[in-house]
C-alpha cells in the first residue's frame, strides 16, 4: 500500500458513454491496454474545462471498474457527482469527446491471500470502487457483506450487476427514502457481530470513514479505507494531499494520499487532524 504506481500512464481517452444514474453520472472511457493495470482502489486524474479553461488542476475520481478488451477495447468506468465547476463540466461531456486522463494512480485495496469475511461500506459515490473489489474478493472465495449509505435514495449508487457479487446488501439513508433510516454506522456493529467480519473495506466521506474506524478498532477488525483529500497533482509531486499516518515504527508522518493512498490502513490514520499537525509528527516544529 505505498509508493508510486508504476502502471500510471497519460492518455487521451474517448468517452464511450455518459449516463445519469440517480444523482450521479456513470461515465465510460475507452482506454485500451490501460484497463489491464487498474486495481480496485486506484483512481484516475482527469483534466477539466477544455482548452482555455481557468481550471488548471486535474480532478480525481475513483475507478469504478475496468474491462479488459485488449489494446483497442479496454474500458474504464467512473461515477461522478456533479459537485463544482470541474465535475459538472465532466458530466456535460458527450460520447466521442476525448479527455486527458492519467491512470491508474494510487494504492489499491489489499486483497487477503485466504478467504475472509469482508464487510464493504460505501458512502454516496464511494460505493463505486467497492463493486470491482467485491468481484476480486468473491473470486478469492470471500464472503462479502455490503452496506451502502447516503443522505437520500438518489445518492445510493448500487447498479444491479454490481450487487451480484455480494452475499448481502444493506442500504441506509438519512431521510429514509430507501432502506433503513439512519447512518451506516448504525448497522455496522450488528453485521460485524452476526457475520464475524474479519476486515472492513470502506470508501466515502472522511467523517464516515472516521466513524467506521472507531467501530473497527473497538472490535479489532482490520479496516482499509479509501480516503479523499484535495489534490493538486495526483502523482506525488506537490505535497498538498497529505494526512498524518502512523508508520510501523510508531512515527507519525504527513504522507501523500495520492501515492501512499488513497487506500490506507484505517488504524494508522490520525483522524480528525484537519487544520492541525498532530503532536509528535515527524518534523513538526
Amino acid at each position, binding site marked *: 500500500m505505498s509508493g*508510486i504506481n508504476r502502471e500510471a500512464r497519460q492518455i487521451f481517452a474517448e468517452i464511450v458513454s455518459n449516463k445519469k444514474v440517480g444523482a450521479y453520472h456513470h461515465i465510460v472511457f475507452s482506454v485500451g491496454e490501460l484497463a489491464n493495470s487498474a486495481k480496485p482502489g486506484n483512481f484516475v486524474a482527469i483534466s477539466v474545462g477544455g482548452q482555455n479553461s481557468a481550471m*488548471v488542476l*486535474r480532478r480525481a475520481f475513483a475507478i469504478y471498474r475496468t474491462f479488459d478488451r485488449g489494446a483497442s477495447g479496454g474500458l474504464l468506468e467512473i461515477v461522478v457527482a456533479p459537485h463544482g465547476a470541474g465535475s459538472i463540466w465532466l458530466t456535460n461531456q458527450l460520447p466521442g469527446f476525448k479527455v486527458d486522463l492519467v491512470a491508474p494512480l494510487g494504492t489499491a485495496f489489499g486483497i487477503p491471500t485466504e478467504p475472509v469475511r469482508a464487510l464493504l461500506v460505501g458512502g454516496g459515490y464511494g460505493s463505486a470502487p467497492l463493486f470491482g473489489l467485491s468481484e476480486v474478493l468473491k473470486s478469492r472465495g470471500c464472503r462479502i457483506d455490503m452496506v451502502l449509505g447516503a443522505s437520500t435514495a438518489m445518492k445510493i449508487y448500487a447498479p444491479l450487476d454490481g450487487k451480484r457479487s455480494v452475499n448481502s446488501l444493506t442500504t441506509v439513508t438519512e431521510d429514509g427514502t430507501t432502506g433503513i433510516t439512519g447512518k451506516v454506522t448504525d448497522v455496522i456493529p450488528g453485521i460485524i457481530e452476526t457475520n464475524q467480519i474479519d476486515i472492513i473495506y470502506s470508501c466515502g466521506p472522511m467523517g464516515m470513514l472516521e466513524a467506521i474506524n472507531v467501530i473497527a478498532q473497538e472490535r479489532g477488525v482490520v479496516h482499509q479505507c479509501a480516503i479523499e483529500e484535495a489534490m*493538486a497533482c495526483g502523482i506525488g*509531486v*506537490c*505535497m498538498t494531499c*497529505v494526512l498524518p499516518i502512523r508508520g510501523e515504527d510508531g512515527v507519525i508522518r*504527513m504522507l501523500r494520499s495520492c501515492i501512499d493512498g488513497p487506500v490506507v490502513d484505517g488504524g494508522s490514520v490520525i483522524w480528525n487532524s484537519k487544520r492541525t499537525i498532530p503532536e509528535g509528527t515527524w*518534523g513538526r516544529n
Partner: protein
Amino acid sequence: MFDFKTSLGQANFENPVFTASGCAGSGKELSQFFDLAELGAVVTKSIMLKPRSGRATPRMAETPSGMLNSIGLQGPGIDLFLEKDIPWLRDQGATIVVSIAGESVEDYAILARKLRAVSGISALEVNISCPNVENRGQVFACHPTTARAAIEAVRRNIGGELPIIAKLTPDVTSIVEIAEEVISAGADSLALINTVLGMVIDTNTMRPKLAGKTGGLSGPAIRPVAVRAIYQVHEAMPHVKILGMGGVASGRDAFELILAGASAVSVGTATFGNPTAVIKIKEELRAELISHGFDSLREAVGYAHRPEGNL
C-alpha cells in the same frame, strides 16, 4: 544546428527548461513519465536543515487560472536528502540544481557547508522567500538587509565552485532593489519569481480555505507579474542571468519569459495539470525559437529589450 544550450553563472545546461522547486519533488515521481536526463535541470524541492512536517491541511485552493499553496516546506531535511535523493538523481543522469531554504542566516550557512563537497550538483538555488524566525517571521527576500545576509552566508560557505541562484519573491515594492542587493552579496544569478502572496476564503465555511490562511499564488494567472519582474531586472542588470518562472504552461509562454530576459525557464504548476508538461514545453519552445529564426537560445534572451526600430 540549433543551439539550445544555456548557462546560469558558471553552470551550463543542455537546454533551458527546468522543473520548478517544489513542483517535482526530487524527480522520482516524474521519472515514470519521462527520462529526467531530458530536462535542462531538475530543481529539487527546497530542502531545510531538519526534517519538516510542513503546514496543516488544507494546503491548496484552485483559483482562476492558478492555485494557492501553503505546503510549509515539508521535507526530510538535508542529511536524508543528501543520502537518498542526490545519489538517485545522479544515477538517472539528471542535471541537478539543489534548492535550499532556511529559517535563519545560520541555517543557510550550514546548508551551504553541507553542500559544498557534494558532487554532481550544477548549481544551488537559494530560496530566500521564506520566513525568518529571527525577525518576526518576515520573509528574507522582502528586505535588502535580510536578503543580503542570507546570500552572503551561502557565498561564504559554499566555496568558489558552485554557482548561486538567488530566488526572489515578487511581493516587494522594488524587485530591482532586492536583485541588486543579492547580486552584490555574491549571488551569480537570479530565479524570478516565487509565488505571489494570496488568500482564498471558503464561502461555505466562511473562513480562509488554507490552514495557513495565506498561500502562494502560482500558475498562468501570475505570468504577467513574472514577465514584468524579469523584464525590469534584466533591464537594470543585463549581464545577470535569470532563471525565469511563473505560469509557464506552453512553449509560447516560455518564449515570452526568455524574450523578457530569462536564460532558462522553470515549470511549476503546469506539471500538476499535466505530468509531461516540462517535456512538451521544451519541444514547443525549441520549435518556437526556430520558427522565429533564432539559431540559438542565447540570441533570444532579452530580445524584447532591443531598441525600437531594430527588427
